[in-house]
């Protein structure tokens, strides 16, 4: 099915970036980029939210956990938020998240917040392109695979313990 995947990219691997765009500025800008035929890297997958303020930190973590190599958040410029100050709220959360993810060993370049106004189609293009390049340079994050490994270890441990118990109660 998804074997119709991209043949480009040296080792076949292509960064997968999940993008959360606010409806009023960045999503509109992305549309503008489309209307102006500003070709850019096909690696970003956009999820539309009404306001960057809707960005629940769990969305970001979930995206990474499910195999995203990068997460991009796009909101209105400070002072331009369609809902007055949702973007500031987003900013606060993003700052927090960034610190958290450092501790989790996720490189800061994998998570980016950009202010992109409705008229900045060009900026959508450059942002997605630069981000894709940075993430490509970092290589796959591959959290799901790592989770799988951890789970295996856990299973092994569990079996060992069970075996012990049985041995004792035998």
């Amino acid at each position, binding site marked *: 099915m998804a074997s119709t995947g991209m043949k480009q990219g040296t080792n076949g691997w292509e960064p997968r970036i999940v993008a959360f765009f606010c409806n009023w500025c960045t999503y509109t800008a992305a549309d503008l980029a*489309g*209307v102006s035929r500003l070709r850019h890297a*096909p690696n970003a997958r956009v999820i539309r939210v009404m306001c960057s303020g*809707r960005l629940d930190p769990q969305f970001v973590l979930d995206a990474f956990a499910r195999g995203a190599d990068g997460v991009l958040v796009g909101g209105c410029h400070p002072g331009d938020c369609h809902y007055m100050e949702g973007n500031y709220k987003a900013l606060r959360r993003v700052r927090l998240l960034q610190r958290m993810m450092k501790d989790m060993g996720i490189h800061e370049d994998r998570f980016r917040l950009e202010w992109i106004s409705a008229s900045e189609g060009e900026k959508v293009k450059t942002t997605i392109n630069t981000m894709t390049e940075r993430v490509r340079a970092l290589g796959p994050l591959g959290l799901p695979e790592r989770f799988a490994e951890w789970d295996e270890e856990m299973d092994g441990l569990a079996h060992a313990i069970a075996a012990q118990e049985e041995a004792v109660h035998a």
Partner: protein
Amino acid sequence: MPETNGHDAPRVGFYVCHCGHNIAGIVDVAEVARFAGTLPNVIVARDYKYMCSDPGQELIITDIREHRLNRIVVASCSPLLHEHTFRVATEKGGLNPFYFQMVNIREDVSWVTENHDAATHKALDLVRAAVRRVAHHRSLATKHVRIHPDVLVVGAGISGIHAALTLANAGKKVTLVEREPTIGGHMAMFDKTFPTLDCAACILTPKMSAVKNHPNITLWSYSEVSEVSGYVGSYTVKVKRKPRFVSEELCVGCMECIDACVYKEGKTPDEFNQGLSKRKPVYIPFPQATPQVVLIDPDTCIEFKSGRCKKTCVEKCDRNAIDFKQKEEIKEIQVGTIILATGFKTFDPKRIPYYGYGKYPNVYSSLEVERLVNASGPTGGDLVLRDGRHPKTVGIIHCVGSRDRNTNRWCSRTCCMYSLKLAHLLKEHSEAEVYNFYIDIRAAGKAYEEFYDKLLEENIHFIRGRVAEVTDWSARPEEEGKMIIRVEDTLIGVVRRVPVDMVVLAVGMEPQADSQDVRRMFNISCSTEGFFLERHPKLAPVDTFTDGIFIAGACQGPKDIPDSVAQAGAAAAQALSLIDAGEVELEPNTAYVVEESCSGCKSCLNICPYTAITRDETRQKAFINEALCKGCGTCVATCPSGAIRQNLFEDEQIFSEIEGLLQEKESVLTGGGAWRAPA
């Protein structure tokens, strides 16, 4: 388990649109349809040439009936364009319209991707996400809000005036706010109008007095909007009324106070005459100013500076209209819709030093010349230069501050035509040789090209070339005492030196200096150049991204009078259709509280910019006032106990979207679940 229309399990109908070649040219739509067919819950998967067409929508409607579908996903253009269309189709099929989800594979895929495989692959991911998401959709009731019938029009140039009159004639109450002491805007300064050459005043002043006398129009001149709050249907607007120091009620505009002023002569550059004449501290912008009320400029009035003036003006005024104590007032009004017609600013030619504006006295801006040739202008229409001479040769330089990456990239659209007009008027006034220096003549308008013809017949010189410099460097005796225009005659391919007595700079149109502040106040967007951004360049030219706020005239982009008037009418019509509908449908994307999970921690209360969240003290729970909620979802993301949820943007919906986007190979779920919200 999401509720459904009579069926337990989701039964999804999927449709991918070719949009002619727009999508099908890049994305393998057949593959997309085939792939969608393999996804869980998908009953029907089709591709069709134009989904937004009637047969396209018919497809959805019949499928819903025949295949008992309860979910619809359409992969086509941007939801901002056709989401509504397909929701209606879904509803026609007998489903709640919100069982629909749209996938943007045109603006977000086919138009921005070159590689076919990459495009198709991206489309598949987005489709997978949408199919998963739609399973979690729920039936919702659309929200309706009342539309307050009154309208605010900001800016009383020709656009604002026309919009206000249209609305008032339709019986709506209009408040018209103008920053300047008089209404009329730039048009009031013009002498004649192209291509008909009828005088601006003659056609404008009747409309101006109509505004003044209209029972449905409240005119607040010399006033500025200072604060806007609320939403479509009910906006609360604060307006700052600057003090005139003359009572608008009492003054009849006899202007005797002006003659009586202790200043025998004016000392201050007259704004209305572009500084070509001087005015007194007590003045009226121009004879037909509306309202016909004088005002006092405290910066130059002796009484304000020293408090020791004979106040001859006060003595003279038998109606005691003059009041030095007058204070600034703040008025508050309620309106349902707002029309912005704040107009433009002319380009400051000083920014191009090569043209010598401000250096050589006889270099004029086009707006100055409008006043200069005007019968009621500073010279009474006598074309006399700053140095007292009458010009024998005049050079009009086009595209000053237009089509130039060093200043403004855009074409100001009006300069060609008004330059032709001025060329005609100048020749008429002075019998001078008149040269036009242009890059291209843009005469695309009714009877515009014909006007150009007429000018050619009048033997006006047209030299195709952008002027490089205006200097007083004379290379020959006959050039002495003249300004030399250096230009390449590109049609002949020779550089020419044209000596002239007068230079007219056809300055372009720019956004108002404060357009950024204004757009913030009204919560709308600006395009890159700084003009107000319309909702859609073709299909919604006077709408903005904020419902109930419309734009008209040159604040949206350079425009001539006919276009401005047309747009003003359109904006008025848009406002009317809202008002007469009486109410407007709103996205039901509001937030709500799941009481059992709410811990009453209050952390959501001060998050809401609309104070829609309050705390029910008796039940110790947060409560959201749906009428006030605008659906930004900020509180949803803030609630630590996940008790606040948002219609159309439920956590499951977004999580499933993420899941769908990333789930290339099935079941990489391990561990990932660890991050899941308590759903």
